[in-house]
């Protein structure tokens, strides 16, 4: 079972991103579950959402304490809370930033396997295509590119299913930018 924890702030579509992640996995025939941590629904407040992907029925409903991947949609959270708490030794970390991971999370880069800590300028990509700071789709695409657990195509399809028309398409284009960005980074490395 792959367990993913998503961190962000209220208004950035963190809960939606977790739901879209589960939908992308579902579209590929996996079992998937997504749920928010409940309570902080204010704009700007730290928000956590969870997603699980498995090839059998997911029965557990406990929060994810030992994620295999952590997605950080807002880098200002790095200094505010321990977003990587419980991250497994072979886990992945995807951070929304244009800076090199070695600059912003040097200790994590040391701890995790090579190529498992990645940054992607998701908000910049979102501003280019969607015109709003909604980094959900590019962050998921970056996760897909890093882990190969699900396809870019499924991420795009999940957003287009949820938001048919222009918004879904813009999210799909943003996702492609992030996917290719990460694939290029991996090639370079």
């Amino acid at each position, binding site marked *: 079972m792959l367990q993913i924890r998503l961190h962000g702030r209220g208004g950035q579509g963190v809960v939606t991103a977790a739901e879209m992640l589960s939908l992308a996995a579902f579209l590929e025939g996996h079992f*998937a*579950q997504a749920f928010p941590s409940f309570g902080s629904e204010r704009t700007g407040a730290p928000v956590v959402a969870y997603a699980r992907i498995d090839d059998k029925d997911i029965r557990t*409903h*406990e929060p994810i304490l030992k994620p295999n991947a952590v997605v950080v949609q807002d880098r200002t959270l790095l200094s505010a809370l321990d977003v990587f708490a419980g991250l497994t030794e072979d886990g992945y970390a995807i951070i929304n930033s244009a800076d090199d991971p070695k600059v912003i999370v040097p200790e994590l880069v040391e701890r995790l396997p090579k190529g498992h800590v990645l940054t992607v300028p998701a908000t910049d990509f979102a501003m280019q295509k969607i015109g709003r700071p909604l980094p959900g789709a590019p962050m998921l695409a970056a996760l897909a590119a890093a882990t190969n657990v699900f396809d870019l195509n499924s991420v795009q399809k999940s957003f287009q299913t949820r938001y048919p028309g222009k918004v879904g398409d813009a999210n799909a284009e943003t996702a492609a930018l992030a996917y290719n960005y990460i694939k290029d980074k991996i090639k370079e490395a």
Partner: protein
Amino acid sequence: MLEQIEGSLGIAKAVALCRPGAVCAYPISPQTHIVENVGKLVKEGSLKDCEFINVESEFSALSVSIGASAGGVRTYTATASQGLLFMAEAVYNASGLGLPIVMTVASRAIGAPINIWNDHSDSLSQRDSGWLQLFCESNQDAVDTHIMAFKIAEEVGLPVMVCMDGFVLTHAFERLDIPEQELVDKFLPEYQPKEFLNPDEPISMGAMVGPEAFTEVRFLQQRKIASSLEVIERVSKEFNALTGRNSGGLLDCYNCENADVKLIIMGSSVGTAKDAVDELKEQGINAGIISLKAYRPFPYEAMRAAIGDTKKVVILERAFSFGARGILYPEVMRSIKGLDTQVNTAICGLGGRAVLGSTIKGLVDYALNDKFEDELTWFDIDTDTLNSYLKDKGISFPQGPISEKQLEASLKGAKA
């Protein structure tokens, strides 16, 4: 059809498949998404011939539902927490009048202190109201139980509360198999009320009953709800034969054969517990789960059979009766009268505190290694928080779960 959707949307779709004629509800977290979605289905026309009525409170929501049901239409509503308490007067009226309303309770704690998160205090507070109360362990179970609930309610002539864990289930996005309309129509025929308010043939409902017959009315009400045990079992079997699933029923046993300890659990913690029990099995520890689905009527006989000759039972209780103890405990003890089973209650998961796999493993460890000191233990309690609050009284609890005995001892300590 398989869909990856929020639990609340799944429930709304299940309710719509049952073709209610009236839906009336007032929004309260964590139930809101359910009725919002039912409202959308009515507005977009996919739920036809249904009146969706907006009202100003939960008391009105159930009062209108009572009116609609008395008028002879299939009626649905939903609520949670303080909302359920606010409609309490009408809750008793609905059952007393024998109206087959189906109501979802997206279970949540009751304030004060205000808390929007999940436990079972709200549903269990209405345990004496004369409604059937069916608990769901997953969103699929909840979807299926709602469809069964209408059939059970209409056959028995009593309202049914479908209790599903707020947020944990209602807000979880999961794979759900939503039955086809054709299947539901076959399973749940059009509602044919036996008696209803009709201006052409006026009758009166809800007459006053004095001391000369009130006890007899109550006896008959008890007889009626007792008859629902058989109906719940039969309807569940029928539904599961149609869908190939294992939903509803009075209770369900998991890994219970030759189990050295059995845990009795209601609601979404059952799924978490199943995973934990599977992990324990790999270590050679044999623990079973009894998922209690029907809380009212309480299935005493089925519970006795499920416990069988197991010598140790732990009840995970997500609500509490102040000044008394666990709410499920006395019911379980009645089920096993005469047996020498050791039964302990663990208070866990209040006000949204997560019931973890490690919580379940802890309960199994406590039971198998005889660590329970008393009938009741506050299991997942944070001793540091308690101790900082009680430090002026010179009281300090050791780390870990706290038994009723320790609580009593601390009172003596305070007096000294």
